[in-house]
């Protein structure tokens, strides 16, 4: 066995792998969010991030925006779901402190798949006629060169997205640093499209080799793609991790209450981020 040079001692150590100005790709809130790592990024004071929500972002993007870590957000939605408005996102947008690249979910997915293949662009149906297109000068409309001659078939080309870092939280890694991602295959796409990937996990299973059987390998992200792993127990808190543990509803309501104002949000940071208050 090789040494576990991929294993970091804490989320704060992992956060150092995300430089200022980085483009980071993060999954939607239901797919495993590295919230402890997000708090570590805020503690470290990362700046000028380009956050790609895959295909949307929630509490994570909202908190990074509120803490002044974000320059650009590229997403098909920013939402806290049933827990209220994303107050800091709305405030930053209204006051022009962030740039937004509004997208539609399949465009985010397809552009990341283009990044995964390192092809410069990928075509996608739909979109033409939406005002999204008018606000996305990086999206081009061309005539489909494969349309039967004499027919016109306009189609959108999306440039590939190749993030600097993919960031998520997962239930476990195995002894070699392979990460269990189950059926959340958008995590494979962002890990491959990105230059590197940092992952927090509930635990490292020293007794497990995910590659040992067809059954377990099916849900594994190979270690090759992973630049760093840290153990962060309940690392998605206050969000859920898949079906492993539930959303902390009371906490999310408390957050959305505080996040209505800049002062409230600062208080929240003081209580739950800078204080390094443990989950629960």
């Amino acid at each position, binding site marked *: 066995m090789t040494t576990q040079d991929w294993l970091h001692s804490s989320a704060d150590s992992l956060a150092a792998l995300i430089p200022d100005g980085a483009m980071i790709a993060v999954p939607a809130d239901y797919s495993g969010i590295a919230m402890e790592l997000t708090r570590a990024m805020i503690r470290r004071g990362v700046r000028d991030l380009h956050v790609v929500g895959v295909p*949307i972002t929630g509490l994570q993007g909202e908190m990074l925006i509120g803490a002044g870590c974000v320059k650009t957000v590229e997403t098909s939605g920013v939402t806290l779901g049933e827990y209220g408005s994303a107050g800091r996102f709305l405030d930053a947008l209204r006051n022009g402190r962030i740039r937004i690249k*509004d997208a*539609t979910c399949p465009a985010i997915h397809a552009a990341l798949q283009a990044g995964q293949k390192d092809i410069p662009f990928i075509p996608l*149906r*739909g979109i033409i006629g939406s005002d999204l297109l008018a606000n996305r000068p990086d999206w081009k409309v061309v005539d489909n060169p494969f349309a039967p001659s004499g027919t016109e078939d306009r189609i959108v080309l999306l440039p590939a997205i190749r993030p600097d870092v993919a960031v998520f939280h997962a239930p476990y890694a195995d002894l070699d640093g392979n990460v269990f991602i189950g059926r959340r*295959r*958008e995590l494979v796409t962002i890990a491959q499209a990105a230059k590197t990937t940092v992952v927090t996990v509930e635990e490292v299973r020293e007794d497990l080799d995910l590659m040992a059987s067809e059954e377990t390998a099916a849900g594994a992200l190979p270690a090759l793609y992973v630049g760093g792993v840290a153990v962060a127990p309940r690392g998605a808190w206050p969000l859920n991790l898949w079906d492993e543990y539930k959303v902390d509803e009371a906490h999310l309501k408390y957050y959305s209450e505080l996040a209505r104002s800049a002062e409230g949000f600062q208080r929240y940071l003081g209580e739950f981020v800078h204080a390094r208050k443990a989950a629960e």
Partner: protein
Amino acid sequence: MSSEFSRQELLIFTISKLLAGVRHVAVGASSPIPGAGALLARAQSPKRMFVTVLGSTRQNFMTNGGVELFDMAAQGRVDAFFLGGGQLDGQANINLIGAGGEYPQTAVRWPGAFGSAYLYYLVPRVILFREEHTRRVMVPKVDFVAAPGPRDDGVYRPGGPIGLLTNLCWFSFDKTARRFRLESVHPGRTVEEVRDNTGFDFECPDGVPETASPDPATLALVRSRIAREIGETYPRFVKQVFPEAA
């Protein structure tokens, strides 16, 4: 409205009927009523029917990540889907982005376009669903077209809206005339009420019927099995609407 069933139960029942004959219906985020309607349609379908409730683990058979729903739609494997919006207009344009002011610094901002600017073109039976039926929502012209209604622009568009379901009524949508038509008004509601609360013009035939009410057997099914199934994803909804099932 009859006291025998709730507003939500009528909508769930109406949706289930709009899904008759569908092989696969998908339901997006924050959509407990469409989700319950889809599950009801499945429970009553004579043939095998597939339901995808986004956000659910059990009512979701997808295994290829977040892109699968969109790929399936392109493949022609999603027969029905639900879309809403902060604003909808008479040409079935929908706005999920924001209203007032200048984009992106709109006076009101909603979460975002999600999959609308794609699924609206590709899914053959898109049901527009928005409970709030007011002139604030049903506007003459949306401020931002997140996803356009059917147009004669040569764009590949095998899909589109079949109609709009609200707290007041069900409109069908004519893709050629590009116009809504009032098909039925919910029990206890009136055509005048619909007209007063709709900011766009629509076809209004004489003698608009009342929206059909759910039969007792269906209501029983909704309150037991369907409430249980949708409760996995929307426990707070079930607690509110089906307190006995929760």
